[in-house]
């Protein structure tokens, strides 16, 4: 670029890259939009950090629970991760199966309709999911929880006592699973459709059945896309507030017991429930938990980006 700025002085006019006014305007606008994102992100981070300083520096006894800010946020982090992981374990296989059905099994018209319906799931507000989980899913799960306690009670996950309302960690995880299903199936669908016809035909010409063709040519190609989609879904599940706040019956401690009525809360749900009744140091503590969630979500999303971008390396584009 420097050679453009110091041209030989032979011509009358200074040699400069010719750029139209429209091009300059658009370049400025898009650069500004990019910077705006950074500013907003930095602003949020700065707010979270400054507002939570009080809680971090306060004596442990003053924090709710009386054992300091880290002991306060620990069970919440656990609950957040547990609910999100349950959601992920349920939604990923389901989302991949839906995407495969839409791309390689369903007749064209059914595939298009089903695709729209799945996308529609993403448009339902989370408060509606919350009420559906509370009023429909939770009661429906109660008999299963009782059955699980009787027959699977030897597994710590189903130790019980089974919740009588169904408002358990498992129910919350299932509601979250349905909420993140659209993003996982949409991204999986995108990458499965792009699996090169070249390699699909190679598999078929070797005498592969459709499922074998999918195993040989589609899934290896789409693997990283599926991982990326799941990570984005995980990000959403981590931050989901209202649905969890409504569904989950909360009473503290760290436990892997998925079917009882005493569960750790999640960070986002806890903020939503506690904030109206908090003041002073309580608010600062909640904001600190928000900072922790911010960091976790950021890490998950960066990991997702990393995995998605790595796709180019082994997609076989060469």
């Amino acid at each position, binding site marked *: 670029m420097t050679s453009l700025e110091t041209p030989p002085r032979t011509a009358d006019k200074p040699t400069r890259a010719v750029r139209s006014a429209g091009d300059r305007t658009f370049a400025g606008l898009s650069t500004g939009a990019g910077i705006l994102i950074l500013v907003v992100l930095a602003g949020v981070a700065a707010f979270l950090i400054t507002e939570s300083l009080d809680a971090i520096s306060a004596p442990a006894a003053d924090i709710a629970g009386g054992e300091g800010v880290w002991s306060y946020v620990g069970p919440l982090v656990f609950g957040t991760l547990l609910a999100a992981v349950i959601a992920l374990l349920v939604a990923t296989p389901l989302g991949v199966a839906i995407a495969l059905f839409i791309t390689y099994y369903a007749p*064209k018209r059914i595939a298009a309709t089903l695709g729209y319906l799945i996308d529609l799931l993403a448009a339902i507000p989370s408060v509606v999911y919350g009420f559906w989980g509370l009023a429909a899913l939770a009661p429906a799960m109660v008999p299963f929880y009782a059955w699980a306690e009787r027959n699977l009670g030897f597994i710590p996950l189903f130790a019980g006592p089974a919740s009588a309302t169904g408002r358990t960690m498992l129910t919350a995880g299932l509601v979250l699973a349905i909420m993140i299903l659209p993003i996982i199936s949409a991204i999986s669908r995108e990458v499965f459709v792009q699996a*090169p016809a*070249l*390699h*699909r*035909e*190679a*598999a*078929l*010409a*070797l*005498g*592969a*059945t459709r499922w*074998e063709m999918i195993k*040989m*040519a589609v899934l*290896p*190609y789409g693997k990283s896309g599926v991982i990326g989609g799941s990570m984005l879904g995980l990000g959403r599940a981590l931050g989901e507030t209202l649905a969890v706040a409504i569904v989950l019956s909360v009473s503290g401690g760290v436990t892997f017991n998925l079917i009882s009525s005493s569960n750790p809360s999640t960070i986002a749900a806890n903020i939503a429930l506690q904030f109206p009744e908090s003041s002073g140091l309580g608010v600062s503590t909640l904001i600190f938990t928000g900072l922790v969630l911010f960091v976790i979500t950021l890490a998950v999303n960066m990991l997702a980006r990393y995995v998605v971008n790595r796709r180019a390396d*082994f*997609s*076989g584009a*060469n």
Partner: protein
Amino acid sequence: MAKRIDVSDLDIFYGNFKAVEGVNVSIEPRSVTALIGPSGCGKSTFLRSLNRMHEVIPGARVEGKVVIDGQDLYGSDVDPVDVRRQIGMVFQRPNPFPTMSIYDNVVAGVRLNAKKMKKSDLDDLVESSLKGANLWNEVKDRLNRPGSGLSGGQQQRLCIARAIAVQPEVLLMDEPCSALDPISTLAIEDLMTELKDRFTIVIVTHNMQQAARVSEQTGFFNLNGVGQPGRLIEFNPTEKIFSNPDQKATEDYISGRFG
């Protein structure tokens, strides 16, 4: 294991569009048969109908008969998957599976047959298939490297090794050299002359010199106009096609007056 292919009154459709009409031909075992003709004349479509690969496109169907060794490929109880296991195919662009090693690419078809093979048997198969495709010496030290790291010509020979590893009766080749340089093309052509001792080979090519070099029989496809179905105009020994063809259209095409 090479088998004779008898095609009678074959029409091929994509939906309502008739792409190929009225093909009658007998393809001899242990020989190379070349199919030539201008673009869009249906020669690739015809080739793909020989192992039912054209059915991959929704709406594609055929009327008529393709009989291999007494068995009608389009019989109502015939599974296209079984047909493709007997009739291998090599495509225009080399398409080794990018996420698999060279070794895994060669045994991909064998693993599909769900036979449990001993590691040593698999090793032998990989070696014999790669030797059969004239690729062994170039890749024997890097069998665990990805197949996509090879040159285009090597990739195409890897695809041939993959196709012959399942011991097919027939090998179909759809313009196997059109994406390759002259040296790689020569390697593949030499390979074809070796392979025809074991397989029935049918090759589609745009390169008339190639057809003249490698084949015993040549079929010329043509169509009367856009939107018309392609037809097999002439099927004769390659020598006759290129010196003294029966049809004027064939002569015009060979001598470069059109196409």
